[in-house]
């Protein structure tokens, strides 16, 4: 189902949107900000809520990424407004949702078989010397592989590199 108005119209009204405007915090319901009368006269009620039978909305605004804003909104029909419990659980889950979406949006890095083999050992907590011994190569060579791996991943530390190639290590 898609609400029937174009994107430009929707975007033009974003500054009036309590959730999308970002003025009232990361978790906010329309009813936190607008009285019933004011809400029923708003463009958002008339054009968005009423056509799909919704009357209440609470939004979970995720941290902005530059100019990109992302909000997950929950709508209910009349008579079942969102509660303090709903506000609280959304506050609690927000950092986890944000982390998951960030991970999903990131391209999986491409590493060579050797780089991946070394990163698996790094993730196990081995030092460069121990990795070199395990692979039967020089410690300097391991260091060079890691240097190239960091560059490919955009990593700034050992721990950061492990985090960035986590999906490869899991696989």
């Amino acid at each position, binding site marked *: *189902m*898609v*609400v029937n*108005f*174009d*994107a*430009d119209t*929707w*975007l*033009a009204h*974003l*500054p009036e949107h309590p959730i*999308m405007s970002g003025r009232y915090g990361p978790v906010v319901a329309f009813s936190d900000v607008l009285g019933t009368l004011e809400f029923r006269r708003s463009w958002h009620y008339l054009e*968005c809520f009423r056509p*799909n*039978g*919704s009357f209440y909305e*609470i939004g*979970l605004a995720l941290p902005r990424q530059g*100019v*990109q*804003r*992302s*909000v*997950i*909104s*929950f*709508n*209910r*029909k009349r008579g079942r407004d*969102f509660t*303090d*419990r*709903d*506000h*609280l*659980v*959304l506050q*609690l*889950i927000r950092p*986890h*949702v944000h*982390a*998951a*979406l960030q*991970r*999903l*949006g*990131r*391209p*999986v890095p491409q590493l060579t078989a050797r780089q991946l083999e070394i990163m698996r050992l790094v993730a196990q907590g081995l030092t460069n010397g121990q990795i070199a011994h395990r692979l039967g190569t020089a410690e300097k060579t391991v260091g060079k592989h890691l240097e190239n791996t960091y560059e490919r991943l955009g990593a700034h530390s050992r721990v950061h590199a492990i985090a960035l190639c*986590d*999906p490869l290590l*899991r696989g």
Partner: protein
Amino acid sequence: MGSTTLSTRDVRAVLDLAGVCAELPAQVQVDDLADAVPELLGALAGLVRCDLLFWDRSSWSRSSVGRASSGRGRPAWW
């Protein structure tokens, strides 16, 4: 300022959803992230019961405050 107390069941639901978030695999860059996260959105709708669930993403003009430069319509996911 009032306080809100969560039931054991609610706390468990939050922890379960945090687990779902942690377990979601990273994926190759996709044009529309929503294609990749039905599990996450479904779990969210389970945590906060709703009739419709929307995911809005928009970009705002850097040069003029309050004016949108691009974005999408409003598809409902639930």
